[in-house]
């Protein structure tokens, strides 16, 4: 077995795959099953002090179809767990006892300093391994001055993170950030200043999944109304990758990534951009806890193929490859090339180049696309739509 262990905030995870704070971790029995399936850790769904009123609405989820395939994105208007700290501290004790080698973390949210600090103290006493603080839930909680209200204000981030960190005697504190901020590195910097140990990027992206065009009610529909919710799943992966990279390249703080991780390839991408820990929610809800077996095996096979002997060697490897636009080479002359043996002659690239590009592709009698190198500026759009991946960009010597 390949060693997939990776350290995050001073804790050694048996593998970097962690169930994010979500419905998947809102029952002790579910987390136990997830650990049995092989997840390295789990963050129990965000809890609060007993006095906190958590009033849920249903339905709370809606999915975005793409090309008649389900769940390109998921929107939820769920709130924090309706199980309060009294229940969660028991779960922590039980799970830690049953699975001492796994990382049992908890997520918390509070309205006042006393709440935050009480939650930390009780969880520490219960034996929790790590505490994540949600400064980032974009719906429901902000109306009460919680969630992303904090995350969007760097001063509040620093102040609140400091309360939490002060209360923690033993366990690392991770602050979960919202992408709904002009510059996420400012928030990450504020966490760093507070003394907290790490950040999680990102929470859901604020959105409206869609609208029922026949009764005019947006999704998800709660009777005849809806509200703005948080979008997760594969569609937000590019946003999450960007946020992770922005933080890891400019702020010296460990990052646990969250946002669209669905396959082992996604996982590797987040590691390459500097994440040290990988949280999964939507994909685990969609495919089940067994997914972790495929994630682990895919990562292990990739490591063997690439001669990586530890996951650590992957972390941040792409960061030097990510530069400012102005730094990019201006004399990189590329043109599109067609692998005629693989081409199925559908002509999609012709339409794409003709109406979406530079009229550099022609199609003759044999239906094989011909690239006019003079006209091809090398934008690569054609390569993104070919259904059989038979177009590639090739470097050519001189710049015309």
């Amino acid at each position, binding site marked *: 077995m390949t060693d997939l262990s990776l350290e995050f905030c001073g804790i050694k995870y048996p593998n970097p795959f962690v169930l994010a704070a979500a419905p998947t971790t809102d029952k002790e029995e579910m987390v136990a099953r997830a650990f049995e399936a092989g997840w390295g850790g789990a963050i129990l769904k965000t809890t609060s002090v007993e006095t906190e009123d958590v009033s849920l609405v249903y339905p709370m989820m809606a999915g975005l179809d793409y090309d*008649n395939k389900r769940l390109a994105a998921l929107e939820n208007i769920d709130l924090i767990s309706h199980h309060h700290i009294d229940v969660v501290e028991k779960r922590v004790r039980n799970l830690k006892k049953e699975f001492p080698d796994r990382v049992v973390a908890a997520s918390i949210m509070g309205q006042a300093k006393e709440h935050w600090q009480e939650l930390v103290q009780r969880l520490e006493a219960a034996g929790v391994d790590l505490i994540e603080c949600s400064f980032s839930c974009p719906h429901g909680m902000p109306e009460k001055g919680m969630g992303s209200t904090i995350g969007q204000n760097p001063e509040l981030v620093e102040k609140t993170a400091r309360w939490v960190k002060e209360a923690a005697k033993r366990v690392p504190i991770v602050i979960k950030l919202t992408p709904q901020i002009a510059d996420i590195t400012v928030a990450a910097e504020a966490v760093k200043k507070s003394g907290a140990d790490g950040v999680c990027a990102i929470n859901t992206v604020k959105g409206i999944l869609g609208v029922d065009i026949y009764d005019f009610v947006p999704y998800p529909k709660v009777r005849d109304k809806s509200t703005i919710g948080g979008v997760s799943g594969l569609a937000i992966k590019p946003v999450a990758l960007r946020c992770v990279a922005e933080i890891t390249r400019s702020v010296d703080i460990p990052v646990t990534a969250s946002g669209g991780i669905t396959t082992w390839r996604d996982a590797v991408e987040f590691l390459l951009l500097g994440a040290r820990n990988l949280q999964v929610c939507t994909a685990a809800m969609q495919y089940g806890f067994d997914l972790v077996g495929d994630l682990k095996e895919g990562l292990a096979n990739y490591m063997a193929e690439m001669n990586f002997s530890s996951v650590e060697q992957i972390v941040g490897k792409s960061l030097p490859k990510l530069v400012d636009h102005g730094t990019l080479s201006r004399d990189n002359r590329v043109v599109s090339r067609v692998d005629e043996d693989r081409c199925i002659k559908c002509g999609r690239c012709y339409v794409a180049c003709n109406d979406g590009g530079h009229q550099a592709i022609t199609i003759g009698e044999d239906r094989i696309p011909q690239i006019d190198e003079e006209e091809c500026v090398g934008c690569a759009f054609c390569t993104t739509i070919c259904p059989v991946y038979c177009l590639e960009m090739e470097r050519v010597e001189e710049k015309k």
Partner: protein
Amino acid sequence: MAEEKKLSKEAALLEAANCLKCYKPPCQEDCPAGIDIPRFIYKIKTGDFKGAKRVLYEKNLFAATCAAVCPVEELCQENCNKGQVSRAVSIGQLQAYAVEMGGEIEFPEEEKTKNPRKIAVIGAGPAGMTGAYRLARAGHQVDVFEAQKGPGGTPFWGIPPWRLSRETLEREIKEIEKQLHSIKYNTRIGEDIQVEDLLNEYDAVLVSCGLGEGSALRIKGADLEGTVDAVTFLRAHNTDENGVPSPEGKIVLIIGGGNTAMDAAMAAKEAGAERSIVVYRRSWEEMPAWKAEIQKAQERGVEFMLQTAPVEILGEKKLEAIKLVPTRLVPEEGRRPRPVPIEGKEFDFPAGMVITALGQLENPLLEKLEGREKVFFAGDAAGGDATVVQAVAEGKEAAGKIMAYFQEAKGRGV
């Protein structure tokens, strides 16, 4: 395909997502009616079923009929580019879905000609009705003459109801009928109306009368009771006409290897034949029936005796058995191999009914009309390939030719 399981909405949406939406799509190029297939499929994908149906009917007034009977494997699906990646898109099933889900569709009024002419259409099959519709929509006065007691032509009389529901066909014909000046049934040109009178009365004649009677089997005993040609048999089977013996409980042998033979064999089985056996002189490879039809026949329990030829039909007054002979195939330069009987190997096979499916003769009406001024041909009468969709294409084309002919005549001051 009428007899295949209809797609559910979910299945249709998933299947529609398989379409690549090719540029200059081969499916459209291979569709005789020229339907913009990727466009109707895209519309299904986006849930615009009415739009999808409009795209279909814009090019094919028999879109529902064709969805049931089109040999899609031989036409639109044959060169589907998706087939190179996984499998061809199920265009036929999607077409059936769109026509079912599209509801009522309407076409905008066309600009009417300022110079309306009188046109006679002979035959109310898909070719004639398509041509008639085009001409009528353009403002011409169209009278249709049909020898049978109702419209539909070969699809109505020749295609078994379990392959094509009569409601489907009738619904499509009804829409066309609304555009016509008149339609007369039980009216044979050359008998009830003389050819010359027709030519005098009308400015143009569209001949879409289909083919004539089935070719006879020229062997000894072929006139014994219990032998029937496939066209007559199918017409009786499909319309519950009397006068043809029932295959029920009998061993039925079908002589021939074309699609009509498959239809007759399946119809015989459907009507309760104990065994339904296709007897064909050559091998699978040369069999002219479409592969999908052969497969359907096999699935329905039809049996096949290949490289076997009929020698003589045996019996006193009624047929009792048939003498058959195995054949060997002798290669022929540039054509199908020639079946040669293996002498001395003849054998008798019990039979309660023999159906001959040896092709149809030319319609005798053609002789009187060929080469005449202002006469146009479409469908099987024009030597088409016997598919509904081809007939539709020819009917459209003939209508275009007739209107071009009027333009030209106008130029000449006629």
